[in-house]
């Protein structure tokens, strides 16, 4: 029996995990420094700005984090090119194949199936490698980088962009940048957190995104379609790896809980700033 030797299923390679960790750090930094400016009328904003060493330092942190975020994006695109070459596929196959992150008709089926399951009118769908909510989160990042990134660059170098764009566009860019960031921060720290970490079967945190590993039993339950496919093709053995040592698991938990805490704090701050201190 495969489960007998204690090995785990490898779901994420090292590059994916590193990129995600860097994204967490840069995203948190962007959120904290950005919200200090957006909610500058709250006491917490002033305190936080001082913790960063003043608004100017917070600004530098903000821009540095933006550079890292953009770097992650570029690294991912480069990886896609490498994957295409490595797997010797066409772009069409890569983008629209069964293992792709692109939405397809099956996702619609699974979504409808989920709703039925939620309402007690059908069985739980047999999810494959990428579920529809995971794809949604993935493309949310693309959308966010495009919208927030473009308006952010405009506000970073206003003298350059106003060579082409009218001055009042800076006002529009401010609104778009600010509200899209609010949407991104709010969504990630609530819906995304629930979808991945706070679901009852994962509570309080899912370590797979940090360790890349998960138990076979868990894998079978989460991704039954993929499990069956791998067993059938005889490739399951290729994905089995040794678990991390307890010390590594511990470090991962500390990092993860810190990120969760910061995320929740920001959500609470947003709610407070929007409902009670707004002006």
């Amino acid at each position, binding site marked *: 029996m495969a489960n007998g030797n204690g090995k785990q299923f490898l779901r994420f390679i090292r590059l994916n995990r590193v990129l995600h960790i860097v994204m967490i750090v840069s995203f948190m930094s962007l959120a904290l420094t950005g919200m200090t*400016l957006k909610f500058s*009328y709250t006491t917490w904003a002033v305190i936080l700005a001082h913790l960063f060493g*003043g608004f100017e330092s917070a600004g530098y942190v903000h821009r540095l984090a933006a550079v890292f975020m953009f770097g992650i994006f570029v690294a991912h695109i480069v990886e896609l090119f490498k994957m295409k070459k490595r797997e010797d596929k066409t772009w069409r196959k890569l983008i629209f194949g069964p293992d792709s992150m692109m939405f397809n008709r099956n996702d619609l089926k699974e979504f409808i199936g989920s709703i039925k399951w939620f309402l007690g009118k059908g069985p739980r769908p047999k999810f494959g490698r990428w579920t529809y909510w995971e794809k949604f989160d993935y493309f949310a990042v693309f959308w966010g980088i495009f919208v927030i990134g473009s308006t952010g660059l405009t506000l970073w170098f*206003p003298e350059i962009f106003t*060579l082409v764009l009218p001055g*009042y566009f800076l006002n529009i860019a401010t609104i778009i940048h600010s509200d899209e960031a609010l949407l991104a921060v709010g969504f990630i720290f609530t819906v995304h957190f629930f979808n991945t970490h706070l679901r*009852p079967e994962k509570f309080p945190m899912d370590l797979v995104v940090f360790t890349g590993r998960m138990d076979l039993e868990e894998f079978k339950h989460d991704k039954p379609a993929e499990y069956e496919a791998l067993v059938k093709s005889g490739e399951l053995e290729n994905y089995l790896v040794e678990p991390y040592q307890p010390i590594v698991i511990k470090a991962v938990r500390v990092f993860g809980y810190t990120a969760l805490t910061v995320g929740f704090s920001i959500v609470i701050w947003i709610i407070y700033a929007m409902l009670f201190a707004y002006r």
Partner: protein
Amino acid sequence: MDKPTQFFFKSILFVLFFVLFFIGKTVAQENSECLTCHEDKSATGTRKGKTISVFVDERKLSHSVHQSLSCVACHSDVEGKELPHEDDLKAVNCGNCHSDEQTQHAKSLHGKAIQRGDALAPKCSDCHGNHEILSASNSNSPTSPLKIPFTCGKCHQEGTKVQQQREIHQDHIIENFSESIHGEGLLRKGLIVAPNCASCHTSHSILPHTDNNSSISRNKIANTCTKCHAQIEQVHRKIIKGELWEKQAHVLPACVDCHQPHKVRKVFYSQGMADSDCMRCHDKQDVKSTKDGRSLYVDFTHVKQSKHAKVSCSQCHSEVNASSVRPCETITQKVDCASCHAEVGTQYQKSMHGQLTAKNDPNGPTCKECHGEHTVKGKTDPTSPIFATNIPNLCAECHREGEKATRKYKGSQHEIIEHYTESIHGKGLMKSGLTVTATCTNCHTAHNVLPKSDSASSVNPDNLPKTCGNCHHGIQEQFEKSVHAQKISDNGKRKPVCNDCHTAHTIKRADEQGFKLEIMQQCGRCHEEITETYFDTYHGKVSQLGYTKTAKCYDCHGAHDILPVTDPKSHLSHDNVVGTCQKCHEGANRRFAGYLTHATHHDPEKYPLLFWTFWGMTSLLIGTFVFGGIHTLLWLPRALQMKREMRQKAMMKEKEQTEQLDSTTKKEGENNG
């Protein structure tokens, strides 16, 4: 009478008539010929290469003392010449008729200066005029008694070129004269018999007092003064006795030894009242008043070191009567400093201090509270209580919190001295010793202190810019042209003045961080809506975080030179706005300046683009959260249920394993049995 005789007489009459007719016509014709050209107001000629007006006002000429003279009587080098005459005529020589005056003038200071080629030296026309010369008995003439001080003052008033560029030994001549008893009699009471400049210095024979021929030299001054004060010698002998009249054997004093030139004021010498007479009693330390028992001791050395060293006792204590055995027993009133310091006294009477004193309010300060009594010193003396660095402490005796002036005070200013000490003015004066720094008296004035609600007060809002402008003149100039200037009226709303932004006694450096952050609140007190929108945009948000380098109100609008954007000189005018942005944003361009610095997304009429962008993004945000939220809420109960099922499966699995283990144990038992 026979016919031949009749004919003879008729012929004579005819000839006389003919001669008179032509003679009269000749004189009239000459003047009218000159006026043909010179009565044109636009007529010009040249003198030494310069174009000058040669207009002659015939009406003025016909009223002058020279009305009966022909033009060529003075302009003699045109006589007998073809008309029109050449340019560059010689200067008129008034000495042709007025030879005595000409001779005196030539020997005088003025005449010698002309001979040296001094451009500032006065000529005949500088005092008398030219074509409009009037008699000295005409009250409109510049040489009439009432006008002479003003005529002389054109050159000898403080601040004129003559006063600044030439060596004049007396200062503030006109000012001192106007305040003297002579000036008061002439200028205020219109007594034309009172002496004017020419009465002492003469009209044309003005000489320095060091010249023995001068009317004001030591040996001639008495003659000059006794033209009016004819009996003065007898009066002095009788009243002052021999002690003062001859201080040294056979050396008589000159008038100016006691009566300073130009500063002649009322003299308060009573009969035989000399300082030594007073000091016979007051020099004793145990002398006391019989009324209230206070000490009446006077340390004469203090008096001699004070500003009043040359003033005799009886000039201030003017009610003393030399005829009494004890002359001071006739004193009923306190010393009236205004008898000499009339102008200052008038200000004081009108001030809050003076009003309190007039009501016999014990809190009202009198002259001696600030200046002292017999130790009065000038304000340039560091030991004087009115020296710049000592003034705050002087005022603090009453105005420090808790002292008598602050107990009844109902205004908004408290801890005045403490605040002043910590202000930029206070630190400049008391810590850095900069005596040019503003002290209490620079703003509130020394003698005319009034509450700011009084329209005459120097700290009344209408007057404050001028008060601050005494030192900050450049800023005042800018302010008076700005939209905040009081004279530029709109809806009657009160406009800010200096202390609205800078405060009064807590004024601080404008480049301090605290000031920079507070100023936005100051602007916001009047410009509420605009300030609100400022904090809605980037500049305002960053400033709220305590960052002082971001643009604040004054970075764009200016500080004291704020102008409407429609004014071409405004920092925000079409031509200047890009330059204003470039103060921080070096690469700013015309489009960049289109940034809406006071935009808000709450106003759909003014900023529709921002309004709809905001609500578009808000809709996206709300839609996403609603979708995600519903999805999450639906998922939660099913996930909980699934978790329970998984737990049950795990328990059953565990149970089966346990049973298997028990079964194995049983089998082994059987084998052993």
